[in-house]
């Protein structure tokens, strides 16, 4: 049995909440429910937004009632099967050079590692996209290897450059645009993760997988000048 609560967020949104945690099993349920609901194309359901721990369902209450939706959700969750991973994979180049990684040294010392080990550990795993949120195209990736799990910085930075690679708690992400930020910055990607002129399919989505490929400072600048956009490809090898 799946433990969840359906909560009202006003009169036009429901939140199917699976609990206050970052957990790959929870994420699998959130994404499977989102997939089922989207496939059903229910009249009155406007959009679904998966997050790390819940699914927001935006609906038109004069077309479909909250009570009907709750029953539908219960029905789907009762019959939910562990579906094989359907997401796509995206390789993203990242430069961990100290010039672009203002917190690398400090992260290494807090984790009792050297910077090369931090880079090796961070770039040697395939990450799951828990959700896209906070900013257009900002993917929350996990799980970070336990050796690199740190609390957020005590003082957030008022502005960090586009492409910054951050770590915080069990998560890591690349910031698609300049923004204030409280995470530790250990690198930067030369590839754009957000381009509104692209079709929606070309951008990272919850459920996709991401691998980081370390690149030199020289390759970083060369890729930047090429203006490349990260494009996930449908591929289930991981």
């Amino acid at each position: 049995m799946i433990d969840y609560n359906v909560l009202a967020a006003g009169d036009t949104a429901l939140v199917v909440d699976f609990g206050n945690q970052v957990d790959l099993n929870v994420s699998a349920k959130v994404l499977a429910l989102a997939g089922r609901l989207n496939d059903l194309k229910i009249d009155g359901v406007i959009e679904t937004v998966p997050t790390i721990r819940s699914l927001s369902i935006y609906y038109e209450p004069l077309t479909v009632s909250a009570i009907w939706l709750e029953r539908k959700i219960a029905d789907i969750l009762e019959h939910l099967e562990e579906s094989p991973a359907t997401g796509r994979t995206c390789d993203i180049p990242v430069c961990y050079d100290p010039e672009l990684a203002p917190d690398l040294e400090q992260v290494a010392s807090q984790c009792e590692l050297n910077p090369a080990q931090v880079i090796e550990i961070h770039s040697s795993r395939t990450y799951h996209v828990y959700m896209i949120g906070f900013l257009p195209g900002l993917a929350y990736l996990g799980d970070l290897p336990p050796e690199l799990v740190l609390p957020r910085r005590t003082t957030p930075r008022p502005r960090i450059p586009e492409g910054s690679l951050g770590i915080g708690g069990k998560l890591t992400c690349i910031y698609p645009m300049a923004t204030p930020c409280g995470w530790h910055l250990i690198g930067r990607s030369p590839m754009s993760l957000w381009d509104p002129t692209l079709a929606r399919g070309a951008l990272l989505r919850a459920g996709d997988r991401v691998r980081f490929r370390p690149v030199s400072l020289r390759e970083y600048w060369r890729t930047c000048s090429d203006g490349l956009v990260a494009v996930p490809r449908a591929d289930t090898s991981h």
Partner: protein
Amino acid sequence: MSAALRILEPGLLTTVQDLGRIGYQHLGVPTGGALDPVSLRAANVLVGNDPSEGALEIAYAGPAFVIEADSVNLACAGACASIEVLPRETAVNGIHYSSMQSFRAYRGQVVRIGPASGSSLVYLAVEGGFDIKPVLGSVSTYIRGHIGGWQGRALAKGDALPLRRSATSEREEFRLEGLDLARPSRFRIVLGPQNTRFSERSIKDFLDGEYTIGPATDRMAMHLHGPKLEHIAGHDIVSDGIALGSIQVPGHGDPIVLLADRQTTGGYPKVATVISADLPALGRSRIGDKISFQETSVEEAKQLRRVLLQQIDAIPNRLVRARRSGDDLTACLLTNNLISGIVDAKLGPSVE
């Protein structure tokens, strides 16, 4: 030469907005759109546009612009503003109009929109609309993400905002009468989704108290100052979706109502959500206004939404043919029930 409005003064924060960018929150893109969609629709109806057409959302202080088209048909709706059409850039005296009526202006004339009174937002629609390419299905300006509208930003001096029509139709001028833009005496909320993370006492204070809309308020968030809310299990949660009108409470305890340009997800507990029927009135409230909240049910909120949508559908029925001359501002304020500013939802218009 293509038709345009050339901006002489941009006003405080003037952006292109329509009914929002729907269906992209899973990519982190906020819905955006007009903070007061009722007034946006009214402005469009006045000039014969589809109600969902993009228009200028003008906050507090209005812009001034030169007409670079043979003729344009314009209308303001929402807050009351004195509108002056001057014969040329150097002219001192012009013809005055008010909100809620359409008017014409011709090549070389200057249109100056005065400060908004009664509420914070004026919508300016142009017959035929602006010739702006939608981004992800909408022309709404999302400033933080540099998306949509005019170059992804608020208007600036010197911008030439392209128009679809270079001349007006033969359409007559209209006024819009009796559109009720009064705000509810108390904004209605549904508790949750994280109300259990606050002490019962502070939820009572939240519902009994009065809040002042703070100066940091913008299109993303309305900052409120008043009784603080007390968290009972910390103020950080694992990120959750944020609905329009969600009231989140960070560590400082002051509630923040999240508006059109809100981030799609966030990590603070949300004590309540303002119901959809009250969001347009909340969106046009002014910094410094006092507001309070009242709990309601999802079912009641649905009935109030139905009433609001019926009012929106009936906007075209309120059009009446207008005299050519301008009307004075007081008449506008009175007809739109904005002087007292407050109408109790149950008792009808209040008398001061």
